[in-house]
């Protein structure tokens, strides 16, 4: 998607929405099962919320401790966006509320990390009579909660599997609600045995809440690779889950942030876990629920038959009333939820698009004051949201040109946007970062209007184009280098011509000087003839110097400068450079130049090189003709005031039309000498000047090479 189209989309989105306070951070709530008490929950999981806030700019994550019974309503009424609950509750919520796991906890025991856990049956150390599940019959049982997976349900499954129905064959079941309370009541002798999840005893001992050797594990199972004592099968650790209302894009970012959390991150350490891993398969938990017929798989556990028959009338009346109430409140809740969903939907869609876009987006009012920015804009500029909102965009980001010259606000294209009420696109300016550095930027600025069409300000969509600029620079530098090598190579091929050309004036100089010396030696020197000889000699010295200068001009400069170029002058000069070669080959070069041509901008020696290449190819081509039929024409014309056209045509044998394109590939050559780079480089040079180079075969033999180049007029128009 182009920047401009992206911008149009934004305008469309913004159209119906009044100024939205994007500057405020969005609050994201993580509901965490508080199985060891709220204080422990906040202490253990608060740092994880902080970590997520730091990883996802624009969001503020908080931990909401939830009792077992509070979890489902919190999810159902959208009081939380994410939940971190035990695996059993998760499976329940997955089925009933459509939550989805995005990561599984890696627990930690000492240096070891593991992502499964189990349940432990414990008793006081002195109760040696309790060793097997069978021995628990008729004993009193304290567990954490009916919904606690590791603190009740796992143990229930194992007892049932051993043929012991805890509901019927124990002295009683009591729920203490936290693991720590279960341990305390077992220690106090309030219950004969208790159920807690793995790693609770170890942590209590570590925290000094439990004396080592004061409790014993009942029915301990050997479990390979699991570092703790356990009485049940193992189940996947707690998952981090998103609710159905939470956007997938946000969830993905949270998941990535969690996975990227280092195992030794402070948030992991305080949670006593070892970071997060990809979400595990929770089928083992489903199996447990199915086996016990609880959770999502619950069946009516007892019948109301007796009750119904006894209080039939009252029951029916109450039932009807209750049904009506339920219907009404259900309807209200449904309406509420719909409204809530709609509102959140609009807001989150809008925010998510702003976040998802890889371009910086900001809005300014008609004073140029920033009213909103997206996270990418924050990333690009280094300024925080608070530092950006309410400040003048131009003064903050756009105050100077790249060379440090001040950029007056009246020249700013963003300001122009709401003056002329049309979009502006710029790709040759810089934005300034908080740290004082700048980056090349491409941006589009479009007017932001309200429904009546009144201009409220402008939206700016920008991207950092440093990489693109650097690539362009590198490409240009490479071409310059290649062109230089090619010029040296051309010069090498022309070396003997050049030497010959230099030899002529040098021989003449030697002769004139010798003549003068001999006349002086022989006293036959008359002043006038000596003077004449010296003048002739001097002329030849200048001629030699001129040749040297031409060569130097042709090969000099690894870093040539751009400047205005007169094409006709360039053609004349290059024709002169190859005139010796042409003369030797008996070739006439005709120049047919346009009377007036606009100048163009470019690198003169590179374009000279192109014309030299074409002329030398033509000289070689016509070499196949009889001596008196070797003709080359260079023509310059002007098309529509904007395109300068140069043609180099010869009356040689022409080219095989199929070879026309090959001729432009590097290292293609039909000559014995030379690198075969001439045409390839010529084409790249012309293209780097915004032009075109192509060849045509003439019907009556001969080839014509065409060059189109943009005149300075064209460039000026493009810039305007």
């Amino acid at each position, binding site marked *: 998607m182009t920047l401009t189209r992206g911008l149009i989309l934004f305008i469309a989105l913004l159209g119906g929405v009044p100024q939205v306070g994007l500057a405020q951070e969005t609050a994201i709530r993580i509901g965490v099962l508080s199985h060891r008490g709220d204080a422990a929950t906040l202490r253990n999981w608060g740092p994880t919320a902080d970590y997520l806030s730091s990883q996802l700019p624009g969001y503020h994550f908080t931990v909401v401790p939830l009792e077992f019974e509070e979890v489902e309503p919190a999810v159902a009424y959208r009081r939380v966006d994410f939940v971190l609950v035990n695996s059993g509750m998760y499976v329940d919520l997955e089925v009933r509320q459509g939550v989805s796991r995005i990561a599984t906890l890696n627990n930690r025991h000492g240096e070891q990390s593991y992502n499964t856990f189990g349940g432990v049956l414990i008793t006081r150390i002195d109760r040696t009579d309790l060793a097997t599940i069978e021995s628990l019959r008729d004993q009193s049982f304290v567990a954490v909660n009916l919904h606690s997976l590791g603190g009740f349900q796992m143990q229930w499954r194992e007892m049932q599997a051993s043929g012991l129905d805890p509901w019927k064959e124990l002295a009683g079941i009591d729920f203490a609600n936290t693991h720590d309370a279960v341990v305390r009541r077992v220690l106090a002798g309030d219950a004969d045995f208790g159920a807690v999840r793995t790693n609770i005893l170890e942590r209590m001992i570590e925290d000094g809440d439990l004396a080592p050797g004061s409790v014993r594990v009942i029915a301990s199972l050997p479990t390979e690779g699991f570092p703790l004592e356990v009485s049940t099968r193992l189940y996947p650790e707690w998952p981090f889950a998103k609710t159905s209302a939470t956007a997938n894009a946000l969830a993905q970012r949270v998941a990535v942030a969690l996975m990227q959390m280092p195992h030794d991150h402070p948030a992991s350490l305080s949670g006593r876990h070892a970071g997060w891993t990809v979400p595990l398969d929770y089928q083992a938990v489903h199996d447990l629920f199915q086996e016990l017929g609880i959770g999502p798989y619950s069946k009516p556990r007892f019948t109301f038959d007796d009750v119904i028959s006894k209080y039939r009338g009252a029951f029916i009346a109450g039932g009807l009333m209750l049904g009506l109430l339920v219907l009404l409140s259900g309807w209200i809740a449904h309406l509420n939820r719909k409204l809530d969903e709609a509102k959140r939907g609009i807001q989150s869609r809008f925010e998510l698009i702003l976040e998802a876009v890889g371009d910086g987006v900001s809005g300014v009012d008609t004073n140029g004051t920033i009213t909103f920015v997206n996270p990418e804009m924050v990333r690009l500029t280094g300024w925080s949201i608070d530092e950006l909102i309410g400040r003048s965009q131009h003064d903050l980001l756009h105050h100077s040109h790249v060379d440090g010259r001040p950029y007056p606000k009246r020249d700013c294209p963003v300001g122009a946007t709401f003056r002329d009420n049309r979009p502006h696109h710029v790709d040759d300016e810089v934005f300034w970062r908080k740290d004082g550095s700048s980056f090349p930027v491409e941006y589009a600025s479009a007017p932001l209007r309200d429904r009546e069409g009144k201009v409220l300000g402008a939206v700016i969509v920008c991207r950092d184009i440093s990489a693109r600029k650097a690539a362009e620079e590198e490409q240009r530098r490479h071409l310059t280098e290649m062109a230089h090598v090619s010029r040296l190579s051309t010069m090498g091929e022309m*070396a*003997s011509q050049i*030497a*010959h050309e230099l*030899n*002529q*004036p*040098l*021989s*003449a*100089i*030697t*002769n*004139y*000087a*010798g*003549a*003068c010396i*001999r*006349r002086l030696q*022989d006293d*036959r020197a008359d002043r006038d003839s000596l003077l004449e*000889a010296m003048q*002739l*000699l001097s*002329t*030849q010295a200048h*001629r030699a110097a001129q040749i040297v200068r031409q060569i130097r001009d042709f090969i000099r400069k690894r870093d040539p400068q751009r400047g205005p170029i007169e094409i006709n002058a360039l053609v004349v000069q290059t024709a002169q450079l190859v005139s010796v070669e042409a*003369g*030797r080959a*008996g070739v006439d070069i005709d120049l047919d130049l346009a009377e007036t041509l606009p100048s163009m901008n470019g690198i003169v020696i590179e374009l000279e090189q192109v014309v030299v290449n074409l002329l030398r190819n033509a000289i070689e081509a016509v070499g196949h003709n009889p*001596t008196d039929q070797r003709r080359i024409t260079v023509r310059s014309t002007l098309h529509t005031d904007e395109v300068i056209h140069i043609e180099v045509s010869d009356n040689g044998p022409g080219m095989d039309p199929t070879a026309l394109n090959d001729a432009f590939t590097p290292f293609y050559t039909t000559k014995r000498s030379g690198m075969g780079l001439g045409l390839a480089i010529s084409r790249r040079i012309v293209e780097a000047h915004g032009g075109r180079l192509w060849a045509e075969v003439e019907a009556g033999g001969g080839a014509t090479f065409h060059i189109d180049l943009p005149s300075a007029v064209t460039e000026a128009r493009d810039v305007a």
Partner: protein
Amino acid sequence: MSPDQAVYVVDDDAAVRDSMRWLMDSVGLRVEAFDSGEAFLRAISPENSGCVVLDLRMPGLGGLDVYAQLRERGIDLPVIVVSGHGDVPIAVRALKSGVADFVEKPFKDQELLDCVQQALRRDAEQSLQRLRREELTTRYRTLTPRELDVLRLVVDGQANKAIGATLGISQKTVETHRARVMEKMAAGSVSELVRMTLIIESQG
């Protein structure tokens, strides 16, 4: 140099031609300059004497083409080929084909002048030899067929008796013819007569 000798300079470069004229003039040599091989070949004839300074690389007829045409036309003026850098193989070929000398540009003026002087001397010698040969040939042509027969056998080193037997004439008759040959050819001895015959036969 003899007064009718000239240095024929053939070069397409006007400055080179003009400066050659100056240089040759400074040592009293006469220069005739031509801007192309074609123009030179039109002007030159076997009667001319002197030497040719010929540029190897010229548009149109190159130096070696000009040289070949000269020899074809029986013009044996000594030829000095002036070549540019990198033309050594061509120059070697030129020397093998009989070119008198070869100067590489850029040359020292003295070097060129030395070559020219040497060529002119050679031309003068060749002129003398040419004159002598012409004189001998004239005399030779006055011999009768029978005298020519006797001459060949004398030069072959045969005695009068053997010559008489070969030609079927008397020894005395042989002696008479032999005396006439010596007289007509103005030869003082048999060995001189042998040398004269070699000179005549060396022609063409």
